[in-house]
C-alpha cells in the first residue's frame, strides 16, 4: 500500500499537474504541452495532463481547477458534518480540534482560492492557486482520513468504556450464580476473554486520536503510513470489541 500511495503521489505530480499545477518534482511539466513521462519516452501508464495549461486551453484548465476547489469545499462540508455529528463519540477536545481545523483553516483557505482562480488570466497564476489547493490543505490525503480515523478511535474508546463499566457487575452476577449452585465455568471463561479483548482493544486504541490529529499537510507523503498504521490498530480493536460483545452474549445466555 505504501508503494501504491507513493506511486500515486509521484504520478500525481504529473496527473494532478493537469489540474493543480504541482511542479515540485517535475518543474514545468504541469500544464506543459507534454508530460515528463512522454518526454522521456516512458511507457508509464500515467495519464497525460488534461487539460494542459496553454493559452489555448487556459479556459479548460481554469474550469478544472474551479471544479476541484468546489469538490474540496463539498468534501470539507461533509467532514464538518461528521465532526459535528453527536451520534458519534468524538471527545469534546477532538471534536473541537477537527472543527477548528476544518472551519477556520481548510474551508476559508480553499474558498479564498476560488476568486483567485476565477480572476486568473495566466497559467502561472492558475498553477499557483492549484498548487496551494493541493499542497497547503491536503483535503483528501490528510483532512479526510484524519477526521474519519479520529471518529473511529473515539467510538472505540467509548465502547471500551461501556464494557469496562459492565465488568464489576458481570463478576458479581457470576459469583451470585455460582453461590446458587449454577455451573459458571463457561460464563467465567467468556468473562475472562471479554476482559482480555477489551484490554487489548484499549491498548490498540490508546493515543490513536492524538497521533492522527497531529498529522499536517506538510507531512505528506510520510504521514500516509501513520494513517495506515492507525487503520490497522483500529481495525484490530474493532475485531476485539466484536469478540467481547460475543462474550457478553455468551455470559448472559449462560447465566439465564
Amino acid at each position: 500500500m505504501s508503494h501504491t500511495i507513493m506511486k500515486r503521489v509521484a504520478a500525481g505530480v504529473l496527473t494532478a499537474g493537469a489540474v493543480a499545477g504541482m511542479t515540485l518534482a517535475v518543474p514545468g511539466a504541469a500544464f506543459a504541452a507534454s508530460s515528463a513521462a512522454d518526454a522521456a519516452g516512458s511507457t508509464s501508464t500515467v495519464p497525460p495532463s488534461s487539460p494542459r495549461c496553454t493559452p489555448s486551453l487556459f479556459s479548460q484548465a481554469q474550469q478544472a481547477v474551479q471544479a476541484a476547489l468546489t469538490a474540496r469545499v463539498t468534501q470539507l462540508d461533509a467532514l464538518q458534518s461528521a465532526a459535528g455529528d453527536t451520534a458519534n463519540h468524538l471527545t469534546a477536545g477532538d471534536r473541537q480540534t477537527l472543527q477548528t481545523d476544518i472551519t477556520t483553516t481548510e474551508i476559508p483557505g480553499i474558498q479564498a482560492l476560488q476568486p483567485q482562480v476565477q480572476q486568473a488570466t495566466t497559467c502561472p497564476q492558475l498553477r499557483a492557486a492549484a498548487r496551494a489547493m493541493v499542497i497547503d490543505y491536503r483535503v483528501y490525503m490528510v483532512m479526510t482520513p484524519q477526521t474519519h480515523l479520529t471518529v473511529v478511535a473515539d467510538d472505540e474508546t467509548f465502547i471500551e468504556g461501556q464494557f469496562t463499566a459492565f465488568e464489576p457487575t458481570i463478576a458479581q452476577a457470576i459469583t451470585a450464580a455460582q453461590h446458587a449452585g449454577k455451573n459458571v465455568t463457561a460464563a467465567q471463561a467468556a468473562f475472562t476473554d471479554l476482559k482480555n479483548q477489551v484490554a487489548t482493544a484499549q491498548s490498540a486504541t490508546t493515543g490513536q486520536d492524538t497521533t492522527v490529529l497531529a498529522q499536517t499537510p506538510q507531512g505528506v507523503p510520510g504521514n500516509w503510513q501513520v494513517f495506515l498504521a492507525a487503520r490497522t490498530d483500529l481495525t484490530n480493536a474493532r475485531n476485539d470489541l466484536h469478540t467481547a460483545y460475543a462474550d457478553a452474549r455468551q455470559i448472559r445466555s449462560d447465566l439465564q
Partner: protein
Amino acid sequence: MHNAKRKLTVVAMAAGVTVTLAACGAGSSSHVVEGTTVPVTATSAPAPASTTVSPGTTIPVTVAPTTAVPSDTLSANTLNQVATELGSLDGNLSTANNDLNNPQGDS
C-alpha cells in the same frame, strides 16, 4: 353493687383489648410496606429481609435466590445498545477504509 362494678371492669378491659388489637392491625398494614427491605437487584446474595410489623415484633422474610444477570447490566436492551454502537463503529471504519483504499485527488 359488687356485681355491677365487676361487670363494668370486665367491659372496660374488653374494650381496651379491642382498641389495642385494632391499633396493632391498622398499623401493621402500613408498616409492612414501609419497612420492607427487599433487595432491589436480583444479583444480591440471598439474605433474609426483616419486615417490621409493630415495635418489638419482626417477621423474617426470605427472598428466593436468583441467578439472573442483573437487568441493568446485561439486559437484552443493554446488549442491543452495544450492538448498535458496534454497528455505527463498523460504518465509520468502513468510511475510513474507503478514504485510505481509494484516496482522491490530492496527489
